[in-house]
C-alpha cells in the first residue's frame, strides 16, 4: 500500500495546527493591511498628513523671502502664491539690510542678463544643506517662469513637462529596455526576485527543519519500519509544498487586493502592469523551483545529524537562487533581455527567481519562459531521483557530521 498520502496528510495537519503557522500566514498580510490602512487614512486628510509630518520634522516656519529683480522679469505674482511670500527690493544693499534685520529669511538676485545666463543667486544667512526644505527657491523659480510666459500658469506647467503620457510600446520582443527614470522599473525586478527567493527558500527550509527534527526526535527509525523512504520523501515534499503554495496564494490574493486599494493611496497600480500570465508563470516557477530546492534540502536533512550542522551547507545549496538577487537592479531592470539576464533565467537552478525578475520588465521572447520551465522540470525530476537515493535508512540513522563535500558526494551517489 502506498503510504505517501498518509505522510502527506499528516504533514499538512501538523503544519497547519501550529500557532506559528497561522501567525505567519495571517500576521504578514494583516501587518501589510494595517500599514496600508494607516497610510490611506492619513493621506485622505492632507491636514492630518501635514500634522504627522510635523511630528517627525517639527513645525515648519515659512518666513518671507526677498528678491532683487535686476532683469525686470517679474511683473506680477501669480495668484496662487500667498501674499507676502516674496518681497521685492530695488537693490542688493536694501535686501541685505532686510536680511540682517531678520525681516526676510533669504533673498534672490535675478541678474540683468538672466535671460542669457539663466543664473539666479540665492543669499542665505547660514549654510545649512539640511534646511534646504525650508527655502522656497523652487517656488521662486516657478514665479520667474510664469512671468516669462506672460502669466499663463497652464502654459508654464506644460513647459515643465507633459501632464499625461500614453505609453504605447512598439518595441519588438527581446528589445525592451528598462527605463531607470521610472522607480517601478527599477524596483519591480528587485521586489519580485526577493519575494520568489523568500517563498522558495521558506518552503524548502520547512522540509529541512521537518526532517532534521524527525531525526533529532528519533522518530525516523519508527517511520522506516512502517513506510519506505521514498514514500516518506514524496509525502513530505508534496504535503509541505501544498501548504507553501496555499500560503503563497493567500498572500498573493491579499497583496493583490491591497495593490488595488493602493491605487487610491499611492497611485501605484496605474503604473504597474503585471499581466495575468505573470501569475500563471509565477505558479509554474514556484512549484518547479520548490520541487528542486525542497528535494535538495530534504537530502541535506537526511544526511545532517541536526539543523545546526545543516546550516553550513544550506548557503551553498541556495547560492544559485541568491545570485539573481545581486543582479536584480543593475541587470534585470536595465537590460532585462541582455545575455546575463537570459542565461540566469534559463539556467534551471537560478530560473525560478531570474525568470520571474525578467517577466515584469516585458519584451521577453515568448519561448523563453516555456523553455526555462521545461529545463527546470527536467532538473526537478533528476534531482528528486538523486535525492531519493540519498534518502536511505543508513543516511537517516547516521549521526555523522556533514560537510559540503560529503553532501555533493552523496547527491551524486558516490557515498
Amino acid at each position, binding site marked *: *500500500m502506498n*503510504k505517501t498520502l*498518509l*505522510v502527506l496528510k*499528516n504533514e499538512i*495537519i*501538523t503544519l497547519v*495546527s*501550529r500557532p506559528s503557522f497561522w501567525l505567519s500566514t495571517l500576521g504578514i498580510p494583516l501587518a501589510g493591511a494595517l500599514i496600508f490602512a494607516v497610510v490611506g487614512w492619513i493621506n485622505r486628510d492632507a491636514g492630518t498628513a501635514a500634522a504627522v509630518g510635523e511630528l517627525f520634522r517639527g513645525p515648519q516656519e515659512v518666513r518671507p523671502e526677498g528678491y532683487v529683480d535686476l532683469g525686470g522679469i517679474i511683473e506680477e505674482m501669480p495668484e496662487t502664491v500667498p501674499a507676502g511670500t516674496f518681497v521685492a527690493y530695488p537693490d542688493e544693499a536694501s535686501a541685505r539690510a532686510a536680511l540682517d534685520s531678520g525681516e526676510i529669511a533669504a533673498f534672490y538676485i535675478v541678474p540683468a542678463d538672466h535671460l542669457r545666463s539663466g543664473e539666479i543667486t540665492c543669499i542665505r544667512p547660514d549654510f545649512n544643506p539640511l534646511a534646504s526644505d525650508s527655502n522656497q527657491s523652487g517656488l521662486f523659480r516657478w514665479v520667474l517662469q510664469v512671468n516669462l510666459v506672460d502669466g499663463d500658469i497652464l502654459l508654464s506647467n506644460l513647459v515643465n513637462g507633459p501632464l499625461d503620457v500614453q505609453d504605447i510600446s512598439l518595441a519588438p520582443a527581446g528589445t525592451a529596455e528598462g527605463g531607470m527614470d521610472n522607480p517601478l522599473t527599477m524596483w519591480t525586478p528587485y521586489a519580485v526576485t526577493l519575494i520568489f527567493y523568500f517563498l522558495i527558500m521558506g518552503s524548502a527550509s520547512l522540509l529541512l527543519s521537518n526532517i532534521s527534527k524527525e531525526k533529532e*526526535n*528519533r*522518530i*525516523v*527509525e*519508527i*517511520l*522506516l*519500519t*512502517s*513506510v*519506505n523512504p521514498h514514500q516518506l520523501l514524496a509525502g513530505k515534499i508534496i504535503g509541505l509544498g501544498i501548504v507553501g503554495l496555499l500560503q503563497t496564494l493567500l498572500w498573493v490574493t491579499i497583496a493583490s487586493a491591497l495593490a488595488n486599494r493602493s491605487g487610491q493611496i499611492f497611485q501605484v497600480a496605474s503604473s504597474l502592469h503585471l499581466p495575468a500570465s505573470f501569475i500563471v508563470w509565477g505558479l509554474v516557477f514556484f512549484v518547479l523551483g520548490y520541487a528542486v530546492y525542497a528535494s535538495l534540502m530534504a537530502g541535506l536533512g537526511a544526511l545532517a545529524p541536526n539543523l545546526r550542522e545543516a546550516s553550513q551547507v544550506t548557503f551553498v545549496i541556495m547560492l544559485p537562487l541568491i545570485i539573481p538577487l545581486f543582479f536584480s537592479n543593475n541587470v534585470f531592470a536595465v537590460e532585462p533581455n541582455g545575455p546575463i539576464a537570459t542565461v540566469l533565467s534559463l539556467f534551471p537552478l537560478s530560473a525560478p527567481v531570474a525568470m520571474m525578475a525578467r517577466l515584469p520588465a516585458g519584451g521577453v521572447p515568448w519561448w523563453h519562459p516555456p523553455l526555462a520551465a521545461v529545463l527546470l522540470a527536467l532538473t526537478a525530476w533528476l534531482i528528486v531521483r538523486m535525492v531519493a537515493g540519498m534518502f536511505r*535508512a*543508513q543516511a537517516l*540513522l547516521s549521526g555523522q557530521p556533514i560537510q559540503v563535500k560529503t553532501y555533493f558526494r552523496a547527491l551524486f551517489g558516490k557515498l
Partner: protein
Amino acid sequence: MFAVEISHVTKAFGTVKAVDDASFSIEKGELFGLLGPNGAGKTTCIRCMLDIFKPDAGTVVILGGPMSEAKKDRIGYMPEERGLYQDIPLERCLAYLGSLKGLSQAEVKKRSEGYLERFDLAAHKAKKVKELSKGMQQKAQIIATLLHQPELLIVDEPFSGLDPVNTQMVKDLLREQREQGVTVVLCSHQMNLVEELCDRIVLIDRGKVMLYGTLDEIRRQFSGHAVLVKSGAPLPALPGVERVEPVNGSYKLHLHTGARPQEILKMLVAKGVPLERFEISLPDLDEIFIRIVQGEGRVA
C-alpha cells in the same frame, strides 16, 4: 516453524564489522532474548532483520520470506532510542503511527483508548508528548508498538525508565503477547528479566554470536565450576575446592579448573559428612554474561 531466520549475516561500517557472520533463528510464538554488551551489534542485527539495513552478506528470512512493505504492517518495533513526535498531542501521534501500520481511524481510536486506559494514560491523551514524563512516554511508545497487533514484536530495552509497577505491567503484557501467539524478541541488559521471561536467547559480542540456545542448555554449558552443598555439619577442607561461599543456609563450593563435582561428592561421603543436599550449581545469566564478555566465551 521460524518467525525469523538469520543466516551468516555480516554488516560492516567502514572497517568495523558490526555483525560478523551471525546465524540464529527465532521460533514462532516464543519469547526470545537478544543479549549483548553495549556496541555488541544487537541494534544492527535488528536493523538487518527489519531490512532497515541491507546486510553485506548472508540472508534474512522474516515471517516466511524476504521483508516486504506489506510485512511491515505485521511487525511491531520499539527501538532503544525512543522516538515520538514531541510537539503534537499523544492521541494524534498514536493515530498517525497506527495509520502507517494500516489501521483505519476507527480501529486506531478504539484500540488506543483501550491501551491508554490500561497504561493509565487516558487522562493525558490530549497533552503534547513533550509534556509527558519519561515513564509516560515510554508507555506511549509501547502502545504505539502494539496498536496494530503485530505478529512479530521486537522490543529493545522495554523496561528502561519504568518503575516496578509499570515494569510488572510490561512483563505481563509481553507474556500475554506470547500466549496470544505473538513472537516476541526482547533486547535487554536486565538479565534477571530475560531469565524470567525468555525461552531461548542469543548473546552477541563484537558482532559474533557467542551463545545461542535455551536458557537451561546454556546454563548447563557453563555449569561445573561450583556445587551447592547443604549439611548440618561443618564442611572439611577439600582438595579441588578454591573457596567456600555461604548461600542461604547452604554452601557454594567454587571448584578449581579441572576439579569434577563427582570427585567432591565422593570425598564428602568418604569423610562422613551428612549431606542434606548436593547439586551442581547452575550459573545465573548475569554470571554467564560477564564471563562471556570478559573473554571466557565460546562462539556458538
